[in-house]
């Protein structure tokens, strides 16, 4: 228990250090990933990270052959990683110039072959008398738990540079992602901006290698932005939320792996991100599944009510025969459950639910014989619902040349989204100069 508390309150120096490093990386990954998500080029991060491996291997070998023993200087290795990523992306571009090999195959080739070359280099390093590949494989799987202060300092500096570039060039990069052709037409240097964005991805890869390892860097580029999409629709807030979610997943991951032994920190960070994604997908304020379902549920309920009232009105119309619906007192005529079932394709259960809801709302009441009657309020609503429906049917028949036998279903769907001003426009269109309460004649009769 004390361990739990100790970790959570960040009393452990090591945990604080690791948290710092991974938080910044998470934020970076989220922000840059937001741009890549919009450009639909998330796989580029995967290629950049896999292609970094031979860069690391070569940097090590070159350093070792120049001055033995200095091969493992982090700066060198990370520079090599960056160079490897850049070379890989350039190669992918070259391969696509054949025009026979498309983007997906080119990226897949570079990803796997460069990684294979990296493996070969690592195995060569392994058998050098001076070296072991252990320090290098840390870059593949990450060594989040073993970050040093020096590592964290470099991560911090690099992250801040990346984040400030994103902030300064936000407008330009956003336009590039949304409408490249327009940006080019405005005279902006789209190729250079594209290059900038790619460099940012490479930078994020290099930053992320010590913490989550290069295999999982792409996860931090893909998952936070997709999760952030459920919280907002606007690009600025999306980028910020994405950064926050990335940092949050890093934090949760680091704390969880500090609490439970033998959990690989990198993998736990990614899985924490997945957990955040699931929560966002369900409960996100803009497009969360839960809110969407609730909204659909309440819309369905409202539609059911209006359909019921319209059906009642139509049944009543038939009962009163030639008399005008405006003059009669519609609240006095009983409607049986049987009639309602006949008129619509509802199941018994649904009918029961809808009737119960209508009674609760006060538009229908149950009379002594077990039949239903409209209340005054119910009559008003029923008139309006039927009028909307019939107006739309008339519009479809007269202006959209739809056969009368086919308008009912379409009108059924459209009538519920008719706003009052649209209804007025329809009336004007059909040149009706009528009293508001009057309802057009049923075209099916």
């Amino acid at each position: 228990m004390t361990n739990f508390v100790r970790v959570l309150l960040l009393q452990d120096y090591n945990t604080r250090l690791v948290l710092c490093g991974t938080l910044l990386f998470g934020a970076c990954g989220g922000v840059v990933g937001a741009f890549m998500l919009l450009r639909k080029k998330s796989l580029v991060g995967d290629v950049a990270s896999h292609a970094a491996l031979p860069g690391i291997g070569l940097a090590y070998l070159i350093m070792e052959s120049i001055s033995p023993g200095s091969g493992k200087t982090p700066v060198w290795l990370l520079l090599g990683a960056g160079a490897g990523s850049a070379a890989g992306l350039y190669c992918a571009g070259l391969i696509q110039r054949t025009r026979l090999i498309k983007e997906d195959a080119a990226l897949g080739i570079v990803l796997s072959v460069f990684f294979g070359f990296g493996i070969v280099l690592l195995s060569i390093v392994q058998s050098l008398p001076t070296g072991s590949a252990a320090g290098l494989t840390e870059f593949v799987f990450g060594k989040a738990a073993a970050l040093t202060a020096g590592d964290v300092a470099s991560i911090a500096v690099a992250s801040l540079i990346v984040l400030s570039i994103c902030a300064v060039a936000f407008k330009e990069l956003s336009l590039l992602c949304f409408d490249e052709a327009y940006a080019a037409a405005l005279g902006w240097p789209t190729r250079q901006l594209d290059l900038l964005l790619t460099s940012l991805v490479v930078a994020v890869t290099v930053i992320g290698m010590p913490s989550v390892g290069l295999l999982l860097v792409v996860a931090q580029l893909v998952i936070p932005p997709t999760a952030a999409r459920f919280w907002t629709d606007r690009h600025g807030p999306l980028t910020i939320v994405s950064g926050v979610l990335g940092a949050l997943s890093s934090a949760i991951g680091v704390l969880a792996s500090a609490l439970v032994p033998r959990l690989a920190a990198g993998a736990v960070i990614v899985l924490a991100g997945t957990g955040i994604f699931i929560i966002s997908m369900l409960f996100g304020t803009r497009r969360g599944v839960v809110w969407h379902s609730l909204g659909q549920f309440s819309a369905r309920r409202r539609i059911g009510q209006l359909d019921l009232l319209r059906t009642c009105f139509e049944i009543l119309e038939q009962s009163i025969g030639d008399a005008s619906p405006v003059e009669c007192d519609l609240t006095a005529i009983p409607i049986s459950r049987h009639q309602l079932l006949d008129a619509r394709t509802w199941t018994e259960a649904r009918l029961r639910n809808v009737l119960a809801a209508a009674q609760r709302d006060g538009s229908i009441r149950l009379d002594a014989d077990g039949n239903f009657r409209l209340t005054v309020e119910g009559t008003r609503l029923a008139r309006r619902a039927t009028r909307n429906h019939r107006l739309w049917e008339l519009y479809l028949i007269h202006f959209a040349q739809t056969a009368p036998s086919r308008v009912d279903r379409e009108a059924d769907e459209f009538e519920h989204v008719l706003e009052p001003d649209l209804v007025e426009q329809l009336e004007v269109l059909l040149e009706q100069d009528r009293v508001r309460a009057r309802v057009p004649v049923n075209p099916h009769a």
Partner: protein
Amino acid sequence: MFSEFLQRLSVWEGIDTWIAVTGALAAMACALPGTWLVLRRQSLLGDALSHAVLPGIVLAYLGMSWMEEIGWLADPSHVSSATGIGRVAEGMSLVARRQGALFIGAALSGVVAALLSELVQRWGRVERSAAMGVVFTSMFALGLLLIRLFADRAHLDPGCVLYGNLETTAFDTIGGTMIPQAVVVNAGMLLINGLLILLFFKELCLNTFDPELGAAQGLKPGWVSLGLMSLTAATVVAAFESVGAILVIAMLIVPGATARMLTDRLPTMLGLSVIVAACGAVLGHVFALTLPAMVYKYGFGLDQRVMDASSAGMMAVTTFGLFMMAVIASPRHGLGRVWLDRLRLQLRIAREDLLGGLYRREEAAVESPSTSPQQSNIPRMSLLQWFARNSLIRQGLIQVGAAGDTLTSPGTTEARNLVRSHRLWESYMARHFDLPDDHLHATAEQVEHFLGPELQAELAAELDQPTTDPHGKTIPHGSEN
């Protein structure tokens, strides 16, 4: 250096042959479905599958170790008492059970991944590639986590996952024989892939190149997709133990891509991809044996016996080398061919421009002899123009004279043809496009080289056989006049 190479190669042992054979069989088995993936632009699927099956494979390993504990599955270190055929049969059934367990694990994992991806797409209304990215990276992370957690129980280490264990799997032989289990597994997979692709060749073709037509004829696209995906997944699982999760992607895509560069015909492409895969694998192992020593000697000055490089990695790199060779040297689509074609075109254009320039000079001299410039040659010619001029002289189209070059009779015919094209095009543009007069020349300068005789005749007919162009110059008669 070459003798060094041969010397290193001389340590080739029996086990090396088995390693090379295993690698080759794995590569060939992967190349067959992989070529289809490349053609269908679904290479990403190979990447996604190899990431997504990881948790399933790890769980399968766990399951197998549990089964070994309770005795359902024979302990691999257990020495069998059977002999001869019985022992081989026992070995084969062990292989079958192991592969079966792995395949079931991977299949479940793959199905879960596909379902989740579909769910995220539908419920979350997320775009397809983003949904796949989220699901597959999460599952890969889960797999890595499980490996770390259960490393000791599952006989699996993270490195093995990534790049396989080709060198040591060669030692896992079928009881009583020298044949590694991996050989049997991959050979079996190769056979299955070959048979299925042969059987369903028509369906695969139809669905790949015209899915709508196939659907109209009753071939459900979903079935073909599912079938190919399952086949790919099975192949990935079979090759997994040999080359690991990442390099199997190379084996799926690179041979197919190489074959695509070499030919446009589908059956040839499939055959070539298998050949390329096999060559890449064997050569890869050769280089894995020889390369480290060379690197040490020439890079570090060390001359000692060193460990071989990773064979699987080297196989991927070598196959890539074959791919790059195809990209550059392919007779149909190679960059070398493209460059050559472009050079030939530039030469033709330079020749025609020279001829046209001479014709115009002579025309100007005829029209206004006193004011035309007396130039002997084009000053400061580029290399290309020099070649062009030489070839014109050689072919007798121009004559070198004291006062400069002049057109011979055949040269004049060709020059006249070119100038006719130029001026016809200017007339055409002047009539149909709303351009000022000084905008016509530049475009016509480019288009004139690409108007063949039929097009020329069409233009002349359309313009009612004009005699002057918009600038007032005479349009020369065509060769038919």
